């Protein structure tokens, strides 16, 4: 039997954080690819400390519902789940640990689907910039890199006049990016896993956005929902798991 364990951050204060994890889990259950699909969280239950005990399957795929490689994917999750690397043997179980979602090759497609949903039926004229919005530094330094990586991958496809990046907690700061970008239309997509205080409140407030479409001086800003809540993220999570199946278990000498 095969199990998929999706690990999310979760929250002590509201349901926003875990909701996409539950929704993607349900979508993946519907495909029948895994015998079990289980949710687990840092701040909600079941905790990572206990989730593996609740799984029946011997082949377990753990996919972190995180955008960037960083503190959670490199320290917290492996520590809490007791993982030793990409493949961990635990009694009769084999646990395969996938990388974060944002660095995966399928990520630009999910971002573009999010753009497609936002722009459906909307006409624009003049130059259009796609701006990817990232959170920025966490305890590790990689979190900005993944935003740049996705911007570069999308830029290579030549779909927009410009593809830029901006951050909440590091330079270049998103407000300045939106203001300075040389385009009439700005499509702003938060590369976040979930809706939350930032996407609903601080970002619209700081940028002066009033909804999905806002006229700001001579610019029109189109503001999308976070990438992580898009239904196609479910496919990305399943693909991320599938990819780890290629890793060979580390054979350790019996002691």
């Amino acid at each position, binding site marked *: 039997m095969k199990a998929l364990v999706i690990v999310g951050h979760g*929250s*002590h*204060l509201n349901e926003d954080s875990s909701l996409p994890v539950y929704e993607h889990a349900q979508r993946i259950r519907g495909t029948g690819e895994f015998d079990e699909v289980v949710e687990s969280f840092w*701040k909600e*239950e079941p905790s990572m400390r*206990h989730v593996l005990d*609740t799984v029946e399957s011997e082949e377990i795929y753990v996919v972190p519902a995180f955008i960037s490689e960083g*503190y959670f994917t490199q320290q917290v999750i492996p520590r809490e789940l007791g993982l030793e690397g990409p493949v961990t043997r635990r009694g009769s179980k084999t646990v395969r640990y996938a990388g974060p979602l944002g660095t995966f090759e399928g990520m630009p497609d999910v971002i573009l689907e999010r753009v497609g949903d936002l722009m459906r039926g909307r006409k624009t004229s003049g130059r259009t910039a796609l701006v990817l919005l990232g959170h920025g530094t966490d305890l590790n330094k990689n979190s900005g890199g993944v935003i740049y990586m996705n911007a570069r991958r999308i830029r290579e496809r030549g779909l927009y006049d410009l593809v830029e990046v901006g951050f909440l907690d590091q330079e270049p700061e998103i407000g300045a990016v939106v203001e300075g970008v040389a385009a009439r239309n700005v499509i702003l997509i938060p590369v976040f896993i979930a809706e939350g205080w930032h996407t609903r409140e601080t970002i619209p407030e700081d940028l002066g956005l009033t909804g999905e479409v806002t006229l700001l001086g001579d610019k029109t800003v189109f503001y999308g929902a976070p990438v992580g809540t898009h239904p196609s993220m479910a496919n990305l999570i399943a693909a991320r798991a599938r990819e780890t199946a290629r890793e060979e278990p580390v054979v350790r000498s019996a002691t």
Partner: protein
Amino acid sequence: MSEAPPEVSSLAAASREAFAAWVAASAEGRLFGQILIRRCSSGYSLRHAEDAGESNLEAHEDPRSAREIAKLTERGEYRPLKSSPNLRRGWEIRVSDSVELAVAMSYLYPAGIVHWHLHRGGRLGITNFRENATRQSGLYKRVQRLSDRGVQDAARACCEDAVCLKKTLWDVDERTPLEMRRGDGEIPCPEPCSVFISFARRVRLFEREERDETGLSVSEKEDLAALIEAAASGAGEVEFAREAEFEKPLNERRMRYRRLTLVPRLRPEE
């Protein structure tokens, strides 16, 4: 494990079958947390224990509907801790077999069945506070400095049945048992949970505060002022902090901690 059919190999499956058998063995049904589970002709029926005799309940057949049921309290507040005694009433889930029963239970009391099963078999591994704290990093690393007294008070404020129905099985460390009523329910708690660690962090910050000439710390004064303002604004107006919002004065666990640590200083003669 006497309850588990011998052919069942995985712990999860053994727990599920043992749980279903335990439920089936009781005519009046079993109480697990706030839920009453009964064997019925079509399988199993789950409902809030206080709805035992109700007939007009919102009916569910999908075991995963338990997730929505467990998400918010009666008053629509988010439930970060599923073992909090604030499960809403008014619903019934009917499931057909032990697998569906386990799915429903996994949303109502995540990992509850496995811990229950292991505990009954004397095999549940316990992680004491100190050991858990050693693992903490980042924002929570400071819980490593929490005093033994602080752990005791935090556990009484955070884990007793009034606020969490799990039976607290962990201790401060091997030699220092918790001095609290550990709880009467069926669901064991083998390790401090993330809500507890977050609360312990807050208590550690309280511990570090200095007291001024009034004998009170800044946060104690802040809490007293907030209580006075809340009470003065009339009963209908008091807005309590959310369950795990420990940074705000009017949080139940924070106030329980004050009752243990501040009230005795305010009323020394009692």
